[in-house]
């Protein structure tokens, strides 16, 4: 190579240096990239300038100063303290937390349900496999908005009125205003229970690592799973009892209009959460089924030949390989669920879009609020994607 290249380059260097620069693919590449960046920057700058110019022309106040103003409206379900005296910024934060809450619980439930249904579709039992198939085909083929309205108007709205609430175990009630259950009020020293839980979790992780290292060294197995379960449940429970059960409950009781006291989950949250979970689970089920079917049959046969039982084969041979195929499309489903949560507007759940919509109307700051929405959803999606990429790298094939 070293002796070959100069003889080719020689004729070029004898021509004028400008024309050689023009025909140099590297220089050309850089030129077009700079040009593209400059054009995009100019485009963005023009949009910004023009928007500002037009807003000024129309006498519309602009900027983000309005976020410090008093909101003046109330929100039904809030995770942090909030009243109509709070600022617009805080109202938006409450909306964001509501979005995160429904997305978080939705993702967990959809994953569990999706895995169960996906594996059930591959079951050798005809009835289980067909039931799972019917589930997938129904929920996959209905728009998510209709699934939300189905739960809100079709299921929850026909529950009894507050006066005829359905009594559930543990002093809980269900009616068309939501689910009511006792609220725990922690007494003195209750924080020790939390400490015990953290200690148990840390101890379990240590035991897992030790057991794995020992198995790699000696081949001896240790029942670390059972030990961890006993630790995580047992240690806080023992602490709780040793402290003399420092908890009291605030029970829901019938008020003039509705049940009062206790904790409430509104029908808006319930219907949105159930709809997103059921809808997304049908897609996850298909991804799981596809992932499992993509693992070569030889793997199962090799495991059987080694004498592994079917359950162990699934858990230790099939699933770990299937996960590598499942995780990337799973990420898209998590992102979809988070974004679909903006359909909350249809049932009046105070998510970030609904709260932002109210703010938009009260302040008229349309450009600013739409920009905030975009930034919020973009950040949520990027964060989820980064986490899933990390998880994917962790699950990837480790070559020894």
């Amino acid at each position, binding site marked *: 190579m070293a002796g070959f290249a100069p003889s080719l380059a020689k004729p070029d260097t004898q021509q004028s240096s400008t024309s050689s620069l023009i025909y140099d693919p590297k220089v050309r590449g850089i030129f077009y990239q700079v040009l593209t960046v400059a054009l995009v920057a100019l*485009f963005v700058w*023009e*949009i910004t*300038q*023009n*928007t500002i*110019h*037009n*807003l000024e*022309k*129309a*006498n*519309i*106040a602009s900027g983000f100063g309005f976020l410090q103003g008093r909101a*003046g*409206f*109330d*929100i*039904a379900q809030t995770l942090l303290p909030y*009243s*109509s005296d709070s600022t617009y910024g805080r109202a938006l934060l409450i909306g964001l937390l509501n979005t995160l809450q429904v997305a978080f619980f939705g993702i967990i439930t959809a994953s569990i349900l999706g895995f169960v249904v996906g594996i059930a579709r591959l079951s050798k039992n005809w009835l289980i496999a067909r039931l799972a198939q019917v589930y997938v085909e129904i929920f996959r083929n209905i728009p998510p908005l209709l699934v939300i309205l189905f739960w809100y*108007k079709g299921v929850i*709205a026909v529950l009894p*009125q507050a006066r005829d609430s359905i009594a559930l175990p543990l002093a809980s009630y269900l009616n*068309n*205003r939501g689910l009511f259950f006792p609220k725990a009020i922690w007494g003195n020293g209750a924080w020790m229970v939390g400490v015990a839980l953290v200690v148990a979790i840390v101890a379990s992780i240590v035991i897992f690592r030790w057991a794995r290292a020992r198995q790699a060294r000696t081949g001896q197995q240790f029942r670390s799973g059972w030990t961890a379960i006993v630790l995580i449940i047992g240690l806080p429970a023992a602490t709780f009892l040793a402290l003399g059960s420092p908890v009291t409950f605030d029970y829901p009781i019938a*008020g*003039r*209009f*509705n049940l*009062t006291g206790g904790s409430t989950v*509104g*029908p*808006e949250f319930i219907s949105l959460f159930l709809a997103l979970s059921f809808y997304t689970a049908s897609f996850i089920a298909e991804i799981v089924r596809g992932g499992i079917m993509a693992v070569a049959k030889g793997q199962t046969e090799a495991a059987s030949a080694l004498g592994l039982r079917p359950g162990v084969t699934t858990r230790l041979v099939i699933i770990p390989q299937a996960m590598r195929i499942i995780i990337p499309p799973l990420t898209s489903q998590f992102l979809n669920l988070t974004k679909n949560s903006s359909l909350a*507007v*249809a049932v*009046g759940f*105070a998510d970030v879009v*609904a709260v932002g*919509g*109210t703010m*938009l*109307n*009260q*302040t*008229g700051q*349309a*450009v600013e609020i739409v920009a905030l929405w975009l930034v919020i959803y973009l950040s949520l999606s990027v964060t989820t994607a980064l986490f899933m990429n990390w998880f994917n790298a962790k699950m990837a094939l480790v070559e020894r």
Partner: protein
Amino acid sequence: MKKTILSAAIGAAVLGAASAASAATLADVKAKGVVTCGVSQGIPGFSNPNDKGDWSGIDVDYCRGIAAAVFGDPSKAKFVALSSKDRFPALQSGEVDVLTRNTTWTISRDTSLGFNFRTVNYYDGQGFMVKKSLNVKSALELSGAAVCVQQGTTTELNLADYFKANNLQYNPVVFEKEADATSAYDAGRCDVYTTDQSGLYAIRLKMKNPDENVVLPEVISKEPLGPAVRQGDDQWFDVVSWVHYAMVSAEEFGITSKNVDEMKTKGGPDIKRMLGAEEGSKIGTDLGLTNDWAYNIVKTVGNYGEVFARNLGPETPIKIERGLNALWTKGGLQYAPPIR
């Protein structure tokens, strides 16, 4: 507007047609041949489409009045149904020429939103509707109730203020569309529905059993409803305002759609002046219209009293008395400056 074509196109994409519509709305309307009004998605008596898509209501007739004044033809009005959330961006961006959509005139809407209000075509106030079976007699008994309300309205803010001022607890259930909020109330999701009192009477008619609902006596706010236009276009603002004043003046003079032709020839000098029958009068042309602008409004749409009676009055299913909306000569608040 000294911007390039490129930026104008981008600006239009970002902000609707704000750049094009900001200056001379009257000229734009004349060029288009139609006046575009933002109206509600369906409030009986104010702006409500029937099953054929024909609109009726007091706000709709206001818009037809504008069309009659500009074109001499009330049918040259186009209606754009807007949710309470979408109405302001629609006006700001120039999607509609005027918002005749039972919108409350407040200082912040007049200033920071960049709008202008002047006339009030319906004086309203916020009230509450509850189920009769709850046996509630006053709004002060509503502590602990779930309240259905439409998103992004002054109603939502007044509700928060009223319950806070009276130390009452409540649970707001907020919907973007009025229809969703009312159906949730009807289905029993809420104990209370709140909006302007005129709206409550109209909405009560849509309930499964209208007689099971009762409107509480309290009026907790002032809601002057009137048309809004964009700031910075005084000519168009004048046209929109004087359409209302012409309708009120006509009622005051006793001019109706039936006797307007007779009045034009036989009326007193002030009536002749208003209807454009005065020699050498420039009232109409100074407004940017023709001299028979007021005649056209009254002839084709009617005076304020006729419009009220047709859409809201005791003869309609809504059955609202004139009350605050009577003429000032009859103890109400409707008053028009002189047309001279």
